[in-house]
C-alpha cells in the first residue's frame, strides 16, 4: 500500500485534524466523537443537521459541514458506521430549540447506530427526526429486505434540507423536503479498480486488468456483476440506463445530473462521462437543468464513477440553487 498515512488507526483523526486546521474560523473539531461541526452551531433559529456514515467517502460528509449544508458530521472509521455514542453525543451537542435532523444513508450499521442514538436523545428530551437515503438502483429491493443503499444521491437531500434549514424551515418541513428529494433521486455506480482501506493495506477485492465491477457499493462491496472494460459510451449506458428506467425519468423531465468520481478517477474523465450522459439524456427528451461533476461521495482511492439523476421541480431547483459555504475546495 502506498498512501499518505502514518498509523492507519490514526487515518481518520489525522484527516479531521487537517480539516479543522484548514478551516479555523468556521469549523470545530471534537476528537472524542470524530466530530466536525460548525463553529456557530447549534443556532436557535435553525434545525441542526447531522450526518454520520463511515469515513473514506470524503468530501462526504465531514467536508460538507458549513452554512447551507450540514451542522455536524461524526463519521466512524473507514467504511464503518460511527459508534452509537458518537451520534448520541453529537446529537446532544447540536440540539437547539428547533431540534435535530439526522441524515442516514440506508445501511444496517448506520440505521442501528442512529436509531439507538435517536431513542436515547429523545429520552433526554431532544427533538430528533431521521431521514433515510436510499438512491442506489444497483440493489434490487425484491431479493432482500434491507433495501437500497444510500450513495452519492445523499448530496441532493443534504443540499436541499440544508438550504431549507437555513431559511428557518422546521423539522417536519425538512422531513417532507428530504423525503421528496430522496424519492426522485437515483444513482448507479461502477468501479474500474478496487479501493485500499489503510487498515487493510491491500485492495478490498481483485479486479483483472480488463475487468470492471458494475453496481459497486461505495464501501468496496462487490456489485451486481463483473464485466469487461468497454468504451466510455457503453459504460455510460451501464450507468444511465438503469437510473433512467428506475424512477422512471421521462421525456419532458428537467433533471439535475451528477457525475461523481469514486476517488481515483481524474476530473477530465468525469467531464468526458458528463458530456456523453448529457447528450444521451437530451436524445431522450430529458433536459439537464443543473450539472454536478466532481467528487461528492467517494470510496477512498477507487477508480470509477457514479451517475445520479434528480427529477427537478421548482422547489427542489430553488433549494439546490441556494448558496452554501463549505470549507472544502477553495478557489
Amino acid at each position, binding site marked *: 500500500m502506498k498512501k499518505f498515512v502514518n498509523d492507519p*488507526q490514526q487515518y481518520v483523526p489525522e484527516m479531521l485534524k487537517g480539516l479543522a486546521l484548514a478551516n479555523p474560523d468556521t469549523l470545530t473539531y471534537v476528537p472524542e466523537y470524530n466530530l466536525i461541526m460548525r463553529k456557530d452551531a447549534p443556532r436557535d433559529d435553525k434545525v441542526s443537521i447531522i450526518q454520520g456514515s*463511515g469515513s473514506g467517502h470524503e468530501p462526504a460528509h465531514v467536508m460538507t459541514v458549513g452554512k447551507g449544508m450540514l451542522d455536524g458530521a461524526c463519521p*466512524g*472509521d*473507514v*467504511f*464503518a*458506521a*460511527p*459508534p*452509537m*455514542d*458518537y451520534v448520541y453525543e453529537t446529537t446532544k451537542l447540536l440540539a437547539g430549540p428547533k431540534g435535530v435532523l439526522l441524515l442516514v444513508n440506508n*445501511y*444496517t*450499521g448506520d440505521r*442501528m*447506530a442512529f436509531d*439507538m442514538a435517536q431513542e436515547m436523545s429523545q429520552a433526554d428530551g431532544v427533538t430528533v427526526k431521521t431521514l433515510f437515503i436510499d438512491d442506489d438502483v*444497483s*440493489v*434490487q429491493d425484491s*431479493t*432482500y*429486505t*434491507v433495501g437500497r*443503499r444510500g450513495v452519492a444521491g445523499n448530496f441532493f437531500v443534504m443540499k436541499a434540507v440544508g438550504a431549507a434549514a437555513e431559511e428557518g424551515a422546521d423539522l417536519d418541513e425538512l422531513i417532507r423536503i428530504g423525503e421528496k428529494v430522496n424519492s426522485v433521486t437515483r444513482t448507479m455506480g461502477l468501479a474500474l479498480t478496487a479501493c485500499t*482501506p489503510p*487498515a*487493510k493495506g491491500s485492495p*478490498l*477485492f481483485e479486479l483483472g486488468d480488463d475487468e470492471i465491477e458494475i453496481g459497486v*457499493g461505495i*464501501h*468496496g*462491496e*462487490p*456489485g*451486481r456483476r463483473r464485466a469487461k472494460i468497454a468504451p466510455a459510451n457503453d459504460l455510460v449506458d451501464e450507468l444511465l440506463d438503469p437510473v433512467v428506467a428506475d424512477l422512471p425519468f421521462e421525456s419532458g423531465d428537467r433533471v439535475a445530473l451528477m457525475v461523481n468520481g469514486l476517488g481515483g478517477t481524474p476530473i477530465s474523465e468525469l467531464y468526458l462521462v458528463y458530456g456523453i450522459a448529457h447528450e444521451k439524456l437530451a436524445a431522450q427528451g430529458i433536459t439537464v437543468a443543473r450539472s454536478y461533476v466532481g467528487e461528492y461521495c467517494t470510496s477512498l482511492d477507487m477508480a470509477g464513477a457514479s451517475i445520479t439523476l434528480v427529477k427537478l421541480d421548482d422547489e427542489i431547483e430553488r433549494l439546490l440553487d441556494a448558496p452554501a459555504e463549505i470549507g472544502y475546495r477553495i478557489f
Partner: protein
Amino acid sequence: MTSPSFRDTEFVVREIAQTCLDNEKQFGDLDSVVGDGDFGYSLARGFEVVVNDWDSYDRSDIGTFLQKIAVAITGRIGGTSGPIWGTAFIRAAGVVKGRDEISGDDVVAMLRSAIEGIKARGNADVGDKTLLDALVPMTDAAEQSIASGQDAAATISAAASAARAAADATTSMIAKRGRASYSGERSIGSPDAGAVAVAVILERLDTDWPNRITEEVETP
C-alpha cells in the same frame, strides 16, 4: 473478593476480547469477500479498549460488569458490529443483574436474551447468514449439554463444535442481511464473517478453559 462465577465470567469476556484482537486480519479478510472488510478492525478497536481498561470496570456484580463492557463496546465499535455486539452484552447483563453467582441455566438464558436482542436490533433471524447462524445452534448445543448433566468443559466443547459446523454451513447460504446481502447470489461460497468469529471464539474458549485460574489470586 470475586466469586468463582465472576472469575469465570471475567475469563470468558477476556477470551472473547483476546480472540478478536488476535484474529483482526482473518476476520477482516472474511468480511472483504462480499462485505467491506472492516469487521476485524471494528471488533479489534473495541476489544482493545476492553483489554486496556480491564481493571477499571465496575465489578459490583456480574450484571454491572457486563454492562460496563457493553458500554465500552458501544462507545468504540462502529459499523453493524457495534450495535449488535453491544446489544448482546447489554441483554446478557440484564439477565444477571445484581448477581454474583450464575448457573449453567443462567448462561443459556443470557445467550437466549442476547440472541433475541440481536434479532430485534438487526431485524434478522436464523437463515439470514449472520452471526445468528452460529450463535443459535451453539446455544442449542449448550442447552442440551447442560440438560443432560454435562459439566462446563464438556458443554463448551459441544458448543464449540456446533458453532464451527454452523459457521461452515453458512458458506452455502445467501446473505439476506448486512452489506453482504447487496451482492445477492455472489454471497454464496464464502462463510459469514460474524458466524466464523463466533466459532473461533468458542474454539479458543474450549482450548483455554482447562487452564483458567479458578482460585482468586491476590495481586501483590
